[in-house]
């Protein structure tokens, strides 16, 4: 039993972090996701981690960093599909909002007990002139065309997809804590750094606490994906990871905005990008409330102690 990163995972984390720092700084994040960004991430092996023999826990380590750097794009679905195409999932249930439609190679739509591959160019959709997250363009369709059946594992999407999304949320929560703490140390009011006031300090302590709790949950869920214990405990820990990581990302986004004061309400300061991404991810792979209900439903099933 070891829920700390292995030496290889530390190297993986530091490697992806330095790549992102150099190649996808926040200015490029603000310009949004495009094929060049996808190709660069693909070149670094982000979407072929599984094919290259990395564990789910390794994928979690990488996706936490993608979250920390606020990297936009249909990252989770593209990794899960894993055939080199840029892919996102959409539902036929209205309202139908499709993310990153213009950048997609394939749109995956649930239907017929599995998924259909829909050609994005065949989709009639009206792009929003003002998406919630400026880095996540959305377009609204009235209906989606039929597509050809495609092999896309639903259970894996429900488990691994949920955990990788939670890893992105963990990264957001972590970075938001870092940004708010740094600002609270330098911003002076009443002749003192605002981080010295308990009213602010305690908000920051709560941000760190939420992040550390979420990190443990996400890492544990990553390990569970690799080890395949009983289905009930696996699902419960996957859903649960997204509950705590999603709550942490949104709560930390709001807390960071408050710590930054008026500056937190400006377009210029980056905090809103992280908070808006947290809100976007809240709608992926069930909301926090939806996942909490799933945890409740699975928690009543018998478990074997020692296996989680």
């Amino acid at each position, binding site marked *: *039993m*070891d*829920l*700390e*990163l*292995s030496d290889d995972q530390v190297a993986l984390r530091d490697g992806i972090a330095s790549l992102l720092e150099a190649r996808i700084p926040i200015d490029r994040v603000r310009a949004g996701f495009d094929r060049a960004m996808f190709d660069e991430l693909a070149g670094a092996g982000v979407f072929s981690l599984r094919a290259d023999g990395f564990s789910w*826990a390794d994928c*979690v380590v990488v996706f936490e960093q993608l979250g920390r750097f606020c990297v936009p794009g249909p990252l989770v679905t593209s990794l899960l599909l894993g055939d080199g195409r840029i892919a996102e999932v959409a539902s036929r249930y209205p309202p139908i909002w499709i993310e990153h439609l213009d950048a997609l190679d394939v749109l995956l739509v649930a239907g017929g007990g599995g998924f259909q591959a829909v050609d994005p160019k065949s989709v009639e959709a009206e792009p929003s002139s003002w998406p919630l997250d400026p880095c996540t363009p959305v377009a609204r369709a009235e209906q989606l065309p039929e597509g050809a059946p495609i092999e896309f594992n639903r259970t894996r999407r429900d488990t691994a997809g949920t955990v990788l999304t939670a890893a992105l949320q963990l990264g957001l929560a972590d970075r938001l804590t870092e940004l708010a*703490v740094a600002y*609270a*140390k330098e911003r002076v009011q009443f002749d*003192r*750094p605002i*981080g*010295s*006031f*308990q009213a602010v*300090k*305690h908000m*920051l*302590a*709560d941000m*760190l*606490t939420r992040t*550390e*709790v*979420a*990190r*443990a*949950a996400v890492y*544990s869920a*990553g*390990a*569970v994906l*690799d*080890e395949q*214990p009983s289905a009930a405990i696996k699902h*419960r*820990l996957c*859903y*649960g*990871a997204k*509950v*705590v990581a999603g709550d942490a990302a949104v709560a930390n986004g709001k807390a960071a905005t408050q710590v930054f004061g008026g500056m937190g309400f400006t377009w210029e300061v980056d905090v809103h990008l992280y908070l808006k991404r947290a809100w976007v991810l809240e709608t992926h792979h069930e909301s*926090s*409330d939806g*996942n*909490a*209900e*799933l*945890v*409740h*439903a699975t*928690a*009543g*099933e018998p*478990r074997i*102690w*020692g296996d*989680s």
Partner: protein
Amino acid sequence: MQLRYSEADESFRAALRAWLEGALSALPPQPARDAWTERRRWDTDWQRRLFDAGYAGLHWPAAYGGRGASPTEQLIFYEETARQRAPYVGVNFVGTLHAGPTLIEEGSDAQKAEHLPKILRGEEVWCQGFSEPGAGSDLASLRTRADLDGDHYLLNGQKIWCSFGQVADVGEFLVRTDPDAPKHRGISWLILPMDSPGIEVRPLKTVLGSSEFSEVFLTDVRVPVANRVGAENDGWRVTNVTLKYERGTAFVSELVDSIRLAEELASRRPVDAIDRNTSVDLGRCIAELDALWALTKRNVSQASRGTAGPGAMVMKLAYSEARQRFGEVCMRALHRDALHVDDNEYVEERLRTLALTIAAGASQIQRNIIGERVLGLPREPR
């Protein structure tokens, strides 16, 4: 990252499970909550059984009669004993988890020889005399005086929140030996025989209606200087040396118990007897408790490597707050079934957990510590 335990750890678990099965079936019924003489006998009897089976002082070094267990074995021990509803450490709490480790680290050879074997065998019960009516969160402002009188100290003052004071043989007491020094530097750590003349113990009734704690009044109590542990006025440091014995396992028993309660509530059928709001809230509590179980394992993993991360610093705050949220959801799910405490573990726990965010460092103090020691934020002038 892996959740799977090593073969050695699994065989430790299997042997422990097998032993617990036999030991628990031979256990007499648990005495009533306030039957303190019987409780002392029951708890120390369990300690003796642990000793005979080689599980006493699990985390103590082998040189002092302990088992020298690894942090992971310590985790497994607390998990399995809680899971099988074995007796909690009870009146042996202070001796095995705090005073004993303090003596191992700071005691003289004579002090170690006198007390450590008795603690392990369940022959000596300890209490803790740290807090005072005027020294709670600001513990270092304590005022109980210890004036030097030849080869004795003369103690005068009042202690509060003394766990198991009414059945203890000895106490670990923090006293002021230099009233003129800065507050952290005038404190000493004493071994106080609880049958010394001048000690009066008054049980304190809590919101549970029972009396785990006592007030202790000290009037001209004579204590040999030889009972001091560590140097004079160095007691503040001495009292903090035990932290390394905890190794991330402090809340394992309580957490395992909480998760069991949550699973029992979640497995009540029909599920639709619980409305959607309560279902969401209960699911969120379970997700939090599972996350804290993962955090515990992460902290133990770091302890095994001899490192410590921020996770160890946030555990107390996160656990106590999450535990109270869970208690609230239980009360709501039970609705009018929450109006009685007898045979009602959920409500009893809700009352008990009111103390979690106060005892051993209130949540507000925890946030100060996290803010200043982990995040490096400037101190508020105080």
